[in-house]
């Protein structure tokens, strides 16, 4: 988020020839261990296609809120700092249009990738801040907001761009951090607010199922021991989620699958999907491997990959 507040344009990406040597410190390797630019292109497609879906269906309350009188508007701190006015229907329609359009431009990764991306990021942050300013704050948007602010920093990237680069690595890491932070800090909040072991031993899942359980979920209401076990599993999984940041290969993919399964089950039981968060589990996967599965003409890769070979030759 603060990434966008940095007005300075990201440094130009230089070929290896004239750059300082590869990152030697653990810190450098962890943040900047090169990642193919194609992964950024895929993450952009996921994020920017999701954006209209989110704005029209999930946080569409911004539009409904705009029809309420201003005295029900209780802006959160960010809204007060930026002096965001109470929404009006036309302002919200304009914001929706600009944000979605900027996102679709940014999704191509070709035309003004930074300007369009940061515009979509700011537009969406405004939108979601309005959505959270009526007495209820959801926390499933952290990874989405982070992703929108870090993905533009890479600049141009196509899904066929196999060049590995450090700028992409940083962006992917930030998205991953957003995902893990949402899990880990949820466990932290449970300790701070609900208490430990009061939270896992309590009846919060019972509370959620009673209030908004699906027929399937309500079927579990009479099994308190199972509900308690599920709370322990949830709490431990959230507390141990930072492992996602350090595992590699199959163990990592297995853990990603576990969390995806957790979201699927939560949806089946109480129609809470956490999609704005869950889609970013994709940031842990080697998405660039999807490109060869596409028909040749959709890859757009040859064009992007060709310049990669050029600087490599003098360096060799």
């Amino acid at each position, binding site marked *: 988020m603060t990434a966008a507040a940095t007005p300075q344009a*990201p440094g130009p990406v230089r070929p290896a020839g004239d750059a*300082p040597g590869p990152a030697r410190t653990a810190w450098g390797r962890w943040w*900047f261990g090169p990642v193919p630019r194609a992964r950024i292109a895929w993450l952009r497609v996921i994020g920017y296609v999701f954006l209209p879906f989110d704005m029209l269906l999930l946080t569409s309350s911004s539009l409904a809120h705009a029809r309420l009188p201003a005295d029900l508007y209780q802006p959160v701190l960010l809204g007060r700092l930026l002096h965001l006015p109470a929404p009006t229907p036309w302002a919200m329609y304009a914001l929706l249009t600009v944000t979605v359009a900027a996102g679709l431009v940014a999704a191509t990764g070709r035309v003004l990738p930074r300007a369009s991306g940061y515009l979509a990021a700011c537009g969406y942050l405004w939108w979601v801040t309005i959505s959270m300013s009526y007495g209820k704050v959801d926390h499933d948007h952290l990874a989405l*907001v982070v992703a929108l602010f870090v993905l533009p920093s890479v600049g141009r990237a196509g899904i066929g761009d196999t060049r590995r680069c*450090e700028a992409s690595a940083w962006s992917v890491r930030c998205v991953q951090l957003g995902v893990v932070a949402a899990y880990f800090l949820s466990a932290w909040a449970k300790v701070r607010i609900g208490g430990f072991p009061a939270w896992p031993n309590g009846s919060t899942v*019972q509370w959620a199922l009673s209030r908004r359980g699906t027929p399937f979920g309500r079927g579990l209401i009479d099994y308190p021991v199972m509900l308690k076990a599920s709370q322990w599993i949830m709490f431990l999984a959230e507390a141990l989620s930072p492992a996602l940041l350090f595992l590699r290969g199959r163990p990592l993919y297995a853990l990603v699958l576990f969390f995806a399964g957790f979201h699927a089950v939560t949806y089946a039981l109480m129609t809470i999907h956490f999609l704005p968060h869950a889609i970013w589990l994709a940031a842990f996967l080697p998405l660039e491997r999807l490109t060869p599965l596409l028909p040749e003409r959709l890859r757009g890769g040859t064009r992007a990959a060709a310049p990669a070979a050029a600087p490599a030759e003098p360096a060799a």
Partner: protein
Amino acid sequence: MHPPALRLGPRARLWRSLAGAAVVGALFYTSAYGSNDDFPLGPMTQFAFSVKGDGGTISSYWLEADTAAGTHVALSFDAVGTGMKRAEIEGQMPRIRRNPALLQGIADGQRRLHPDRPRLTRIYVVQEIKTLKRGKVVSTMRQNRVVWDVK
């Protein structure tokens, strides 16, 4: 073999490192000392509260209304129905209780969102309280917390 990776210059690396560390730091700080007001930062409070399995209660609020057509309806739980979600009604409950006139805004919003439906004449904020014993619901109680005659 892979082509050599594209590297970042020291300044590009520096602002990225600092931005990353700053956001992570801010997330930890707000998780430790902050409140929901700090959105989009922490604390991640959704479902973080604890409900006692023995003697704990599950409370929920929703809106019901009398209409000009003489019917009594439950208003939809989502923002598209009334302009306010159930959790938002709950989040603003202390304000609504102090100042029931806020419900007038909901009637007005409803009229703008659904001009085709019969006008609301009286709005009720209904609370349901379920009591738990050994993790199971043993009793349910319902009452009107706030009633507002629409003007």
